[in-house]
């Protein structure tokens, strides 16, 4: 494994960013016609498309819950998303894990007791993979759910952070993630309260460094929240103006 210098002595990373810089973020809503809600999200070179259907009739009646809506998440990684074309196995645990993590994260935010015995389906498609898949998926899902008008108590914004050469770094790209020595921490917060809904960490990190890394990732989440909020307000304002006349 080639040991590239992930953080140069001047403090620049391999894509030219500083340690606490976020990658370029692009958000779009209502990109699909058929879905009740959809969104397109870009974080640097990672691109995700999210579609939300629901609340609708559950496919398996027995799986329906009597007092709340069940949430189903399907996460697909496109074979052309990585530099080498590779078809992913459907039962790939990594993919299932991200889908399951997203499902459980949003179960906490969606007010599902309003739609008992129904199902909300979230479909995610990873179009280009440059690290930060989980965070991009969560952000895309938030935008799609807002677009679908599904009631939520707050946004859920996610960001990743790591630790390279004694410095916490924000928003890891794929090269940084793939390095075994770099701890990879993904955190999802509800921006208004600042509380953590999702926390996943891989590789080794000193206990006393956890606080700083988490704080940096939360900062990143807040920055992403500002960007997302702007886009949502703009779109909503747009709609309101169109309805107005």
């Amino acid at each position, binding site marked *: 494994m080639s040991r590239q210098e992930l953080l140069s002595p001047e403090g620049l990373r391999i894509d030219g960013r500083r340690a606490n810089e976020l990658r370029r973020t692009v958000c779009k809503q209502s990109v699909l016609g058929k879905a009740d809600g959809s969104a397109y999200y870009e974080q640097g070179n990672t691109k995700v498309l999210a579609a939300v259907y629901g609340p609708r009739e559950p496919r398996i009646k027995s799986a329906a819950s009597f007092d709340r809506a069940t949430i189903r998440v399907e996460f697909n990684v496109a074979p052309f998303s990585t530099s080498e074309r590779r078809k992913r196995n459907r039962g790939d645990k990594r993919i299932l894990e991200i889908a399951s993590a997203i499902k*459980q994260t*949003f179960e906490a935010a969606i007010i599902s007791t309003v739609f008992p015995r129904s199902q909300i389906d979230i479909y995610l498609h990873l179009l280009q993979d440059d690290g930060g898949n989980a965070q991009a998926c969560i952000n895309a899902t938030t935008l799609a759910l807002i677009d679908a008008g599904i009631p939520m108590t707050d946004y859920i914004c996610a960001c990743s952070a790591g630790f390279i050469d004694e410095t916490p770094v924000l928003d890891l790209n794929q090269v940084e993630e793939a390095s075994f020595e770099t*701890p990879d*921490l993904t955190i999802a917060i509800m921006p208004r309260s600042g509380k953590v*809904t*999702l*926390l996943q960490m891989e590789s080794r990190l000193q206990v006393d460094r956890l606080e700083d890394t988490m704080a940096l990732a939360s900062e990143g989440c807040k920055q992403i929240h500002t960007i997302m909020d702007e886009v949502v307000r703009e779109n909503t304002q747009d709609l309101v103006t169109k309805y107005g006349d």
Partner: protein
Amino acid sequence: MVREVEPSLNEKTFLLQALHQGLRLDGRSPVERRELEAEVNPQDLGVVTVRLGQTKVTASVSCEIVRPFPDRPTEGLLVIASEFGTMASPAFDGQRSDEEVFIARHVDKTLRRSRCIDLEGLCIVAGEKVWSIRVDLHFLDHDGSLLDAACFAAISALTHFRRPDVSVIGEEVTVHSIEERNPVPLGIHHYPICITFAFFELREATLNNTSGGEGGSGGAATAADPTAEVIQQLCVVDPTLLEEQACKGRMSVSINSHHEICAISKAGGMPLDHDLIIECSKHALKMARPLITKAKSFATSATAKKATK
């Protein structure tokens, strides 16, 4: 598809009321772990059965010679396979449930991603032959904290395991049987231990619902009403099955003796404050220490038994 029945409202409410008073149903305090017992058979190197209360998990380690990955020619492989059967619980019925994926991935991160085994030491002939170490986890009985039991079983089994000795002369590779030469232990960099926490939310109405409430409508309001006031957030260590079913969120922290966190998994559930998470990880370190010592002791137990053979 067999359905696991959810615990009744009475049980969930009672659990929360007891927790409010700092009591758990088996008499433990909220920060106490259950007694962890591990059984080893000296004849079977690398097989450890762990009992954590009623939870029972077996880990067995085996090895074989394979080709290495082309981009990592000098490294051996570590494969972790988990078997979830209906034996452990009616909920594991063959369909990949969230619980199974969560456990399998967390064990993978704890052991493989954190590089606890010396993989370079498993190389025989660079680019051609390396050892592939396989850890099979069998979940036999589910009474909560499957992850804690599984991680401990896995790392103990890896410590206990001995692989056949190999000698390489030029191009020729000879694998020595156990009778010829003593088998060799695996190189272990560090010992990760997993501690699971469960979080509960206490609402005003739950506390008042001891025996009153008109019919069942009072009960429905306490369980599902998200607007009832939350007065307390509680945390317990090493939850039992009932506590896991009644909790609002879970977090598993894997930590080793070098004060390093190897993995954290908290998927959804109750939103937590940063401080609570930091506190939990510090607490996990304290709880992990005696377990790490116990896991390390498996190395000597294997050699001791070999001496008497």
